[in-house]
């Protein structure tokens, strides 16, 4: 497998962490309570930390002298390979928690497989991230249950979020060409195999939360190929502003 394909495979994982981390960072100082604000920001930092490990590795593999910052801040929209789910904008707390929950369940399943990768660096990153993501999943599942089984208003809001975001879940299990190459070389994970466990876990939590599982059979896709929703451009302009305006700026 060529380095370029491994790099693309890494983007497919790391870009999810970057973009979801960016969405959570937008809420810093705006959480519904001091405690949840800190919790969401903590998760954002966990995700950005993971992103750095992946990008540093990708930079090391690249032959054109790119740095982790170039990868994070200077790619164009089509070069980001995150799923559509994680770029969806923050609407309300129930929505943020549902988006997080839908991603966390997948994320943990992915890392549990990725830790068996033949690539030692990816395996090490996965092992370290598993502890963080286990907590994310615990946090978001607990909140889905609390809101779903809470007041009439919280139930309705989180049900709306589940209905609105459900259509983005299927894309998590699509394989790109680089995913297939990575899987065949023993480096990557066959995500199609995670699908059954994923929907089982998600459904268990939704049922406990007294929420209805949507019957939608129509799903959105495109993010993994770099075809993003209209929200992505705005997110990137926030994320990239400093590096675009002051090239090579350092903290």
């Amino acid at each position: 497998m060529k380095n370029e394909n491994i790099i693309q495979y890494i983007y497919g994982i790391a870009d999810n962490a970057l973009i979801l981390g960016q969405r959570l960072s937008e809420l810093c100082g705006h959480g519904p309570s001091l405690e949840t604000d800190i919790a969401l920001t903590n998760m954002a930092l966990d995700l950005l930390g993971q992103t750095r490990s992946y990008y540093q590795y990708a930079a090391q593999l690249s032959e054109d002298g790119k740095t982790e910052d170039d990868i994070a801040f200077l790619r164009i929209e089509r070069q980001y390979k995150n799923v559509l789910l994680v770029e969806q904008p923050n609407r309300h707390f129930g929505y943020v928690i549902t988006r997080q929950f839908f991603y966390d369940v997948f994320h943990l399943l992915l890392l549990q497989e990725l830790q068996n990768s033949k690539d030692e660096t990816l395996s090490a990153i996965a092992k370290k991230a598993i502890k963080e993501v286990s907590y994310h999943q615990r946090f978001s599942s607990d909140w889905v249950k609390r809101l779903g089984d809470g007041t009439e208003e919280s139930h309705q809001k989180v049900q709306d979020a589940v209905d609105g975001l459900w259509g983005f879940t299927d894309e998590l299990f699509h394989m790109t060409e680089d995913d297939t190459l990575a899987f065949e070389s023993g480096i990557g994970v066959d995500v199609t195999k995670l699908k059954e466990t994923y929907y089982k876990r998600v459904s268990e939590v939704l049922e406990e939360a007294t929420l209805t599982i949507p019957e939608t059979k129509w799903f959105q896709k495109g993010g993994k190929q770099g075809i993003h929703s209209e929200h992505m451009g705005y997110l990137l302009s926030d994320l990239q502003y400093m590096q675009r305006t002051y090239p090579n700026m350092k903290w």
Partner: protein
Amino acid sequence: MKNNWPLWEVFVRSKNGLEHRHFGSLHAADAEMALENARDVYTRRNEGVSIWVVASKNITASNPENNGELFEPAQDKVYRHPTFYSLPDEVKHM
């Protein structure tokens, strides 16, 4: 959002062998949430290895108005401290 969750007191053990100490308080709807919040608010810089939370309403506190009768009588009773023994130098930390 108006935060009308009850208050919880947080106790953290910094490392094994030490006692749990009062770290502060926070709001949470239930005990499980209080633990998660405590983890995020008080131990994110590696401050602890164990957390206790207790609903603040379950703590019975002394009334500062009674400080006179509760604490002042102890102030002039030096003989309650074991300071009248001569200790050999070898005995430290007494």
